[in-house]
């Protein structure tokens, strides 16, 4: 909140000092709705910090960012979006972490002619039939990283996976994504309670199932609990999952239990390109911690927006839309382009959890899917 406050107060001071003269037509007003309190706050804070780092580096006075906390509640997010659109008159909305909140906010925001740039959530409904020319996803379609895990499992020679995810839409998308690419058999498919923290019963089932590998999607605290209990159970099957359970923000809490686990991500801090090197260094210098994939997504989202601002005026919506679609910016993940439904086409890597000195982090060990688009392109008519 401190950074948000100082930025909005700095913006306020600037507006007061310069008066109406600086409020020219080309200024862009951004409304960021993200999760800054409660159990999921780490993700929103990373997105915000990544986004604001890019804005700060650009030093662009024509952009104003209003940041609000959605408390991970769809009703709060909807209220904030209404307030930002109607009284703050924002041009662009961004920031939402969770798919259910995105589903509550995005369709009505884009219907009112606002742009929405998603730094995280990519529900299939917004990629397929519900796609919209003003909605751009800068992270991934929800299924992507899980599809990559399925593809990697084939490469690694796994033939019999035990898969589990929480019993809610994104959990079902995850297992669907894995099964779309995985060619082997399933030793078991389990849906756990959302927010469950004890996995003793599932671990006993895994042990008894005769599987040769375990795939799971348990974001946040659920994943921390699962990995610790998995390591303690003495089961020594290889584990793989999407990056969400092996993210920089939670690896320290999992500890050595995560070492060696394979996970799939469109970004890693060791992707070798100048933009990424500069990002990782400057993020550490600014905030005193390693960036996570969420931070990288926030950073890319801001840079995409800045690239479009350099090319077109926000008051000309068609030109601005075309400038966004061109994706003419240096993504920290390397090559980046938009598919026809405004979702990324990008490489998805396999990472391994390693220890660098005292810090537990990820290292790229291969590419799972090259130039992966998404499964919903054909359903999108726009």
């Amino acid at each position, binding site marked *: 909140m401190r950074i948000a406050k100082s930025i909005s107060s700095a913006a306020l001071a600037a507006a007061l000092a310069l008066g109406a003269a600086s409020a020219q037509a080309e200024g862009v007003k951004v409304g960021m709705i993200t999760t800054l309190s409660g159990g999921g706050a780490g993700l929103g804070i990373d997105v915000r910090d990544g986004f604001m780092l890019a804005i700060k580096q650009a030093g662009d006075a024509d952009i104003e960012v209003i940041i609000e906390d959605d408390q991970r509640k769809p009703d709060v997010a909807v209220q904030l979006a209404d307030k930002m659109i109607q009284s703050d008159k924002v041009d662009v909305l961004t920031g939402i972490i969770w798919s259910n909140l995105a589903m509550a906010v995005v369709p009505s925001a884009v219907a009112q002619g606002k742009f929405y740039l998603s730094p995280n959530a990519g529900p299939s409904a917004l990629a397929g039939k519900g796609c919209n020319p003003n909605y751009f996803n800068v992270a991934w379609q929800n299924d992507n990283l899980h599809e990559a895990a399925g593809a990697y499992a084939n490469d690694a020679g796994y033939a019999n996976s035990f898969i589990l995810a929480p019993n809610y839409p994104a959990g079902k998308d995850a297992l669907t994504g894995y099964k779309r690419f995985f060619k082997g058999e399933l030793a078991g498919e389990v849906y756990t309670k959302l927010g469950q923290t004890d996995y003793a019963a*599932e671990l006993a089932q895994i042990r008894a199932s005769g599987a040769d590998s375990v795939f799971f999607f348990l974001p946040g605290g659920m994943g921390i609990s699962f990995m610790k209990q998995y390591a303690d159970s003495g089961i020594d099957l290889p584990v793989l999952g999407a990056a969400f359970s092996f993210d920089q923000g939670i690896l320290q809490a999992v500890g050595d239990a995560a070492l060696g686990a394979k996970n799939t991500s469109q970004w890693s801090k060791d992707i070798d390109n100048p933009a990424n090197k500069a990002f990782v260094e400057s993020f550490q210098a600014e905030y005193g911690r390693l960036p996570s994939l969420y931070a990288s997504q926030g950073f890319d989202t801001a840079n995409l927006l800045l690239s479009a601002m350099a090319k077109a005026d926000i008051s000309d919506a068609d030109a601005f839309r075309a400038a966004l679609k061109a994706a003419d910016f240096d993504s920290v993940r390397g090559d980046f382009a938009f598919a026809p439904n405004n979702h990324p086409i990008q490489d998805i890597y396999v990472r391994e959890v390693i220890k660098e000195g005292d810090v537990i982090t990820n290292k790229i060990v291969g590419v799972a899917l090259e130039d992966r688009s998404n499964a919903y392109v054909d359903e999108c008519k726009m």
Partner: protein
Amino acid sequence: MSSLLLFEQVLNGLQLGVMLFLMAAGLTLIFGVMGLINLAHGSLYMVGAFAAAAVAAATGSFLLALAASLAAAAAAGAVIELGVIRRLYDRDHLDQVLATFALILIFSEGTRWIFGSFPLFLDVPDYLSGPVTLPGGIQYPLYRLVIILAGLVVAAGLFLLIGRTRIGIQIRAGEADREMIAALGIDITRLYTLVFALGAALAGLAGALVGAIQSVQVGMGEPVLILAFVVIVIGGIGSVKGAFIGALLVGLTDTLGRSFLPGLFGLFMEPAAATTVGSALASMAIYILMAGVLLFRPRGLFGVA
């Protein structure tokens, strides 16, 4: 194989049960003695876990961490009893719910303010980590066995405290007739603070024990709080014995439901549908149990009529 799996799942259910008992015991004592609904009990669980994680990170000792969790949660409990809760005994339950809900928000944001938004690290100590082989060839995590043991020891201690000591007599008397024991010259306010701190310490211990195998993060207490309420409703509000039996019932129902219901439905349904129906029903199992108990014993298994 299947009987071994069943045995392992029963152990898992017991472990969940004794953990729930540590939470529910404090909750039911506080309700029984003071007539107070304390929603902030989950926050005390969180305080215990964070204190343990902080001390473990600083000293590296798990035993010190456990001691710290007891001390920190008891202290936090005593402070909120003196500062807030004391003013609520004579108010109706709605006021109590509102005030203790406010305490949840204060504790959550306060903890975030001190420790940050990212989960903390607390691990099982080396000498308790890894599996042991039980008779019959079951590989079972040693730490979970230790949790079961620790929970049973605490339960036995609590029964002795309440059944055999002077403080226990006062607590039981306080449950039965508050005015009378005050009239007999017992310092009732001190007794209240003591009971509250005791309940808080048990919650803090549960938080630290469980924190080692789960995630130490803001908001970790609330899901457990809901389960603890289910436990005391099943067991009978105010009854420690009821809390013990209720906790074991809930632990076993939840664990066995999660592991066997989907398979059971698989016997006569499509696998995909069985998974969906089974998982859904497993999430509901403990609430169905609660509804069933209340149907036949409206005051819970050991509630006083």
